[in-house]
């Protein structure tokens, strides 16, 4: 079941020059069950030039407090305005949307995020942990200043880092991290979200080592609910909607 609800911003914490975490308080109605990897279509009012909603992953959920967190990277008109919203203002969301990540059939998992793609991995990590699986995170950014919320990820499991400029962790891309350079990977499932080139490399890596790789696509969307057919990804079964059949796909299913 999908809903359209107003949320109240109860905190707006800037992480870096680009990233903000918004904590949103739901109203009276209890939060529906949300799966890691699902997203919301967020309405951004008062942003000149923004007409459509913006898809943003559910970064974290606190059912007790009835709160949802979003991790927003400022990349353009809409995200710039959203991150400037004052505490107390309202945000309208259509949620929870799409199919999230599956539970693994192995306890050995690696969660790989790049850029704002780290957003869904926190909630996924929490979910895995609740299911008795220790998540390990591999987070890649351009430079250390872009590393966000490491402490939150750290609470859930081991966090490994790569930066392109070497200012933190291993220098290079996620694929250059030692954990990915061993003969035999010590994980069976990769969960990933981030820039498409990164995910494609991971998909290839998974193929090569015969691992399962679940990728979360960030295709442009108009409706978010399967009505417009704008967000398609080519799959083994033809074009599928990222917003309803995804955003999480098994990498082998995609025609990459």
């Amino acid at each position: 079941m999908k809903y359209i609800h107003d949320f109240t911003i109860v905190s707006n914490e800037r992480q870096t020059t680009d990233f903000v975490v918004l904590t949103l308080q739901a109203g009276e109605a209890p939060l529906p069950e949300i799966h890691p990897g699902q997203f919301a279509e967020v309405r951004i009012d008062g942003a000149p030039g923004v007409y459509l909603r913006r898809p943003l992953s559910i970064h974290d959920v606190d059912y007790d407090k009835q709160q949802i967190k979003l991790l927003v990277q400022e990349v353009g008109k809409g995200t710039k305005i959203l991150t400037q919203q004052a505490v107390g203002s309202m945000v309208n969301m259509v949620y929870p949307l799409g199919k999230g990540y599956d539970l693994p059939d192995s306890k050995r998992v690696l969660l790989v995020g790049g850029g704002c793609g780290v957003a869904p991995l926190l909630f996924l990590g929490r979910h895995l942990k609740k299911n008795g699986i220790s998540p390990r995170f591999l987070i890649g950014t351009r430079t250390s200043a872009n590393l966000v919320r490491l402490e939150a990820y750290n609470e859930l499991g081991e966090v490994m880092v790569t930066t392109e400029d070497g200012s933190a962790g291993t220098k290079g891309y996620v694929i250059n991290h030692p954990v990915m350079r061993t003969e035999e990977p010590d994980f069976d499932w990769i969960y990933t979200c981030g820039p498409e080139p990164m995910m494609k490399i991971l998909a290839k890596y998974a193929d090569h080592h015969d691992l399962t790789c679940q990728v979360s696509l960030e295709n442009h969307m108009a409706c978010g609910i399967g009505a417009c057919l704008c967000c398609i990804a080519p799959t083994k079964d033809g074009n599928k909607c990222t917003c309803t059949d995804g955003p999480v796909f098994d990498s082998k299913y995609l025609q990459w």
Partner: protein
Amino acid sequence: MVDLSVKLGSLELKNPVMTASGTFGYGEEYEDFIDIHSLGGIVVKGTTLHPRQGNDYPRMAETPMGMLNAVGLQNVGVDQFIQSIYPRIKHYKTNILVNVSGSTVEEYVETAEKINELESIPGIELNISCPNVKEGGMAFGTSCPSAIAVTSAVRDVYKKHLMVKLSPNVTSIAEIAKGVEGAGADSVSLINTLLGMAIDAHSRRPVLSTITGGLSGAAVKPIALRMVWQVANAVKIPIVGMGGISSAEDAIEFMLAGATAVEIGTANFIDPRITIQIIDGIRSYLESHQMNSVQNLIGGLITE
């Protein structure tokens, strides 16, 4: 109690608010948000004789108060529609119209013939105006003779309500409306999307895989309203107006210009409850203007 019902020829609508093809899926996508049965009608996805994969990604670009799409009629094809989708939606207590598209007159005809057999489908919307397919589509709707040819051919086989959806990418939409009226259309709907284009200045590439696409949304409203007004002054058959309608006031403006009913398209993406809000808004408007029937709005523009 105000009367919201309108008649589109043989079609009885409990209110003038329908949904536009390609923006409302098969209705099911919106079931979580609204009561589908409360709508005046729904026009389902553009349906073709054979299944179509549509165009490549990217298919969408946001524009100032509008959007471009280049979906290209991705659909499961009419047989699959009849087999697996129709049984799921035929219980809707509203008018379900199928938007019929094709690349040749024969395809249109064959598709319409098949839909003619479906008891719970009281009409089709003949899409001769899709700008996003290489063959057919808009080509039919931008020349008067071909618009007439495809309408007549479908009219011969299709026995229920035949609505023809017009292209705005023409010099005189009124002329084409008159043509399809003469060819036997029961109503016309307008406008389909305007052909547009988006470029990414930094990558120096088109945003859409197809370079050009169809513009819809609030931005096009003034053009759509003008075309409805022009067509209303040209034909006698009822008109279904659309193009950027996002509020009850917008819907009322289209009716004042001469539309009997309206379709809501892109606005569904911005608020999935918008159709119901528009129905409620029309009701309030009539009450506050002390009008007892929405039919009084049709063509009610005061021009002295």
